[in-house]
């Protein structure tokens, strides 16, 4: 039987959820016996491939790039996991949501600069009006909150999915 394919990506977040994924320690061996990680910050692929079985997405949808990557991942994956509080609730990135983006960028890049500066436009993705939870942009199949989610919760979810079962977090459900 062919190995299953896992893709991961990191939108507006701190990479802490990916750190927690690495923190499953030797659990990764069991995961990799059943699946390959074909995309994400942990591997070299430049584009989200077709035919991914499980997409694991960290971070809120905050910029145009985030939105496009989330949509691509959704279109090319069978099952989407929203990993961590940013993907599930918006979390810290959403704390900017009460502030208009122009004002926010001005405050950070111009008023906050120690040397005269302007708001960057080249090479950086445009900010969306608000940083939103993943399920406001694409259909999400399971939410795994936590900041970050505990490694045992991540390992449980991946193991269940790789066995073909839909995981029920139960007592592993935890925000913050």
């Amino acid at each position, binding site marked *: 039987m062919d190995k299953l394919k896992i893709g991961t990506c990191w939108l507006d977040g701190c990479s802490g959820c990916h750190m927690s994924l690495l923190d499953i320690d030797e659990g990764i061996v069991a995961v990799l016996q059943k699946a390959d990680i074909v995309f994400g910050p942990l591997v070299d692929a430049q584009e989200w491939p077709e035919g991914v079985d499980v997409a694991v997405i960290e971070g809120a949808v905050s910029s145009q790039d985030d939105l496009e990557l989330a949509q691509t991942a959704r279109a090319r994956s069978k099952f989407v996991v929203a990993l961590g509080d940013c993907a*599930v*609730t918006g979390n810290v990135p*959403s*704390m900017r*949501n009460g502030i208009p983006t122009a004002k926010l960028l001005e405050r950070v890049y111009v008023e906050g600069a120690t040397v005269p500066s302007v708001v960057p436009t080249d090479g950086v993705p445009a900010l969306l009006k608000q940083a939103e939870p993943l399920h*406001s942009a694409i259909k999400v199949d399971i939410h795994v*909150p936590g900041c970050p989610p505990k490694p045992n919760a991540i390992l449980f979810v991946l193991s269940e999915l790789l066995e073909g079962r839909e995981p029920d977090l139960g007592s592993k459900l935890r*925000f*913050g």
Partner: protein
Amino acid sequence: MTEKVKVRIDGEVIAATTGQTILEVARANNKYIPALCYMEGLSAVGACRLCMVEVSGVARLLPACTTPVQEGLAVATSSPQLQSYRKIALELLFVERNHVCAVCVSSGHCELQTLAQDHGVTHVRYPYNYPRLTVDTTHPRYVLDHNRCVLCSRCVRTCAEIEGAHVWDMAGRGIQTRLVSELKRPWGEATSCTSCGKCVQACPTGAMAEKGWGVEEMTKHRTVVSRLTSMREGQ
């Protein structure tokens, strides 16, 4: 005059006395009914709607914290419908303000967070409101963060009923309702505040906290209010 009555909670016959509420009888008999605005030792206001229960012969749901028991009353504390409504009530509390557990002093000790986890709220199905809210840091020892307030009014009742100072009140209507100290003075300028801190201990979330604590560090003494009330009743 109080009378002994018999009620049924989830099928079990339980002895109670008139004047007790469904929630009081349930808790005294280890029957779980969730609640957020209820606090033992304070008057009940039925604000959070998490303790809604099904009462036989009554077409609508009733809040357990404000419904008195009577002879023959039969209550169901849990059903798929109640669970679904409680989940909705919790999710609506989350969308109304900016509850960011990851940066909250009360994370891990928060009643709202615990209720959400216990009720299987894995995510919120409604659009968030993202209101811009203030944080009142004017009091020398305590802080009030409106982002985390659920308007349960436990602080209002604690201050009015237990401390007798009545510093806190609700101002505004509906979604614009805000907790205010002394007709909207900053907390630090509220001359009637005795700085006793019981409101902080009564607060179910991180909306009220002692200054100086980091994320997850603010644990609260939940039994302060009920202990004071029972000591006074014993006098």
